[in-house]
């Protein structure tokens, strides 16, 4: 068997409960994003663009859509003879099986998978962040520093630092201390949940961690602190580009709106670092004579007769005559009939809003909440929707 330099392990089992209605039927990495993508597309595309061709995707929560979406990985050019993409759900063993109890446990249960490739490094990723990153540069950094493990970090505003796992480093970028959600942060370098480990070391430490009854088997809470306690060389790899954890409805909505910014730091239009996704096979979208489209992104197969502003429109959306869409996200196949008004809302896929429906939260002190309308439902004509609709 040929040896792989690096195998990526993508943690995609999270429920993303704070996304509420959006993750009712799918795991967080499979949530649709940015007009044609799913959140996991970013990590998978980064892998391909970074030259990493072996990716294990660890799934657990409601994996059906995620599994069928990933398929054999051809959308990301990860259908390979040697390597490629592997979906790795929890499985039954001789002594019974177990769910993945934590991020580290998920990797530990798949030691055999990684051993097949005998890699020098294992790259641990999470499937729920929006960013573009060249992992090969991080691995190079890891090699240069002769590190045992490297953690990618990003500067966050000081005021928010207490929400993250914070790294304290010395002048040589070596990590001296790791504090999970500290009350009084001493640095604003937050962990991005991206780790490079020397596989032989990680393998050993995972097996040790497995035996510790008090461990929660989590990288941030258990494995990293353990490595620091045992005086291993951990380095912080500074990342400066756009990175967003879309863990809440607000941050999900914001990350979508960030794409509308002309100076969008994510740079979806950069053909040198394409974000790949499963393509929908739809014709070009049609903007009728009565339509108006301003500051928005629109995907293929849409038919637009009404007005769209500051919005993200997924494939196959229909916006009828007289309809007005503002500051919103319309998922695949949403149907807005005549004179529908949608303001600051997320409309689930294939949901139908019949004529003259209004979807907008009441403004309080000039502020407006984001409304979420679930997928595959029909809202009768002349409805006034002012709260989330679950089903």
């Amino acid at each position, binding site marked *: 068997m040929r040896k792989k330099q690096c195998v990526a392990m993508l943690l995609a089992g999270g429920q993303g409960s704070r996304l509420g209605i959006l993750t009712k039927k799918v795991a967080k990495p499979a949530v649709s994003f*940015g007009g*044609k993508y799913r959140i996991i597309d970013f990590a998978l595309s980064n892998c391909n663009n970074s030259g990493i061709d072996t990716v294990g995707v660890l799934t657990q929560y409601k994996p059906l859509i995620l599994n069928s979406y990933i398929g054999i990985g051809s959308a990301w050019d990860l259908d390979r003879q040697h390597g490629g993409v592997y979906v790795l759900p929890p499985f039954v063993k001789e002594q019974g099986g177990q769910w993945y109890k934590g991020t580290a446990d998920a990797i530990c249960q798949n030691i055999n998978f990684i051993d097949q490739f005998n890699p020098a490094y294992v790259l641990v990723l999470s499937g729920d962040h929006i960013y573009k990153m060249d992992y090969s540069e991080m691995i190079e950094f890891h090699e240069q520093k002769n590190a045992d493990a490297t953690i990618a970090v990003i500067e966050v505003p000081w005021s928010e630092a207490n929400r993250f796992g914070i790294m304290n480093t010395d002048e040589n970028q070596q990590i001296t201390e790791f504090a999970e959600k500290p009350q009084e942060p001493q640095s604003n370098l937050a962990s991005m949940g991206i780790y490079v480990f020397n596989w032989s070391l990680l393998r050993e430490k995972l097996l040790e961690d497995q035996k510790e009854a008090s461990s929660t088997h989590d990288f941030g809470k258990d494995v990293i602190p353990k490595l620091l306690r045992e005086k291993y060389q951990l380095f912080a790899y500074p990342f400066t580009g756009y990175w967003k954890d879309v863990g809440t409805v607000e941050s999900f909505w914001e990350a979508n709106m960030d794409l*509308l910014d002309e100076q969008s730091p994510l740079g979806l*239009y950069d053909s040198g670092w394409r974000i790949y996704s499963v393509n929908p096979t739809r*014709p*070009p979208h*049609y903007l009728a004579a009565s339509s108006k489209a301003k500051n*928005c992104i*629109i*995907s293929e197969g849409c038919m637009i007769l009404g007005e769209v502003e500051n919005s993200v429109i997924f494939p196959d959306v229909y916006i009828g005559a007289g309809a007005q869409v503002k500051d919103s996200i319309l998922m695949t196949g949403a149907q807005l009939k005549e004179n529908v008004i949608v303001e600051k809302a997320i409309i689930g896929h294939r949901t139908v809003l019949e004529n003259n429906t209004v979807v907008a939260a009441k403004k309080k002190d000039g502020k407006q909440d984001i409304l979420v309308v679930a997928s595959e439902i029909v809202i009768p004509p002349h409805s006034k929707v002012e709260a989330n609709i679950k089903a």
Partner: protein
Amino acid sequence: MELMGIINLNEPEEYLGELTRERPFAAVPFAGRYRLIDFTLSNMVNSGITSVGIFVQHNYRSLMDHLRSGKEWDLARKRGGLFILPPAYSRFPLQVHRGDVNNFHANLDYISKSAPKYVLISGANMITNLDYREALAFHQSQGADITILYAEMMQPKEDCLQTHILVMDDEGVVSNMVEYDGEAEPQKMSLGMFIMEKRVLVELINSCISQGDYDFIKHCIIKNCDKLKIYGYCHQGYVAPIVSLQSYFRHTMNLLKPEVWKELFFKSGLIYTKVKDEPPSKYTDNAQVVNSLVAGGCHIEGKVENSILFRGVKVHPGASIKNSIVMQKGEIGPQVSLENVICDKDVHITIGKHLKGEGSYPLVIKKGWVI
């Protein structure tokens, strides 16, 4: 599936002038993100056909690049799938290549070795969305030797160049195929699509070759109209024959009618093409786009009216595009105005240029030009 497909790319390349100078007819970009061949190929696949052979003519690099393994049409298969059949060149130099029957003859092995019993032969110049299974069922129930698909339509003369009109009796039996004579009444226009048993095709080709004949329609079909039981099958639906630059332009503009858009892209199946992984198209605050089709990856800051933009087109502020087609990766500079223009791929129109063609004679800008 008991039907296999053969796409016989025998369209004269001068049909589309500048657009076919450096690419085969079947690879001409159409409808914002497709090539002409995508329609025939997708119709076949959507009809359950899993084995398709394509007779290519010279200069087929761009077609190969487009089709590759056939994966996008689900035709990268272990059994059957997509076969690109290169032209039959003579072993003796300077011998003139006269017609398409030679191509059939050179590939008879491929045809007779394929598993299906029936064969569907089609060109790539009839843009439509249809299910061949209905035509095959008709062929079988009539006990026909050959079934020719046709559409009943009123077409302007320029659409009927090189197309054949069926002469049929009330029973639907075809007695002859003639050139269009300009009569102003609905015509039974042949779609250039034929269904027959493979056995019949092999016999026709062999007898044609032995008599020194060379043209499939003229010598295999028309010459045998009185000997074989040939039926016409009427295809009800929108058909766009692409036979000239004018018809190409007019039928592209017809896509701006929502009913045509819906029928052509969704009626009996989706139309597949090579994917480019473009992001969704971006409209800025200055964008003014009406009655237009826009494919993925465009960035629009100007005015676009009654036009078709292919994938990855950039329209700068102050630019105005009217009744025009801008193909893949075109860049339309600030203050440019275009009217009745077809920009081939990778064209860059720099700041302030005004270009104008006529509705009946669009101005074509050659691939890759900077103006």
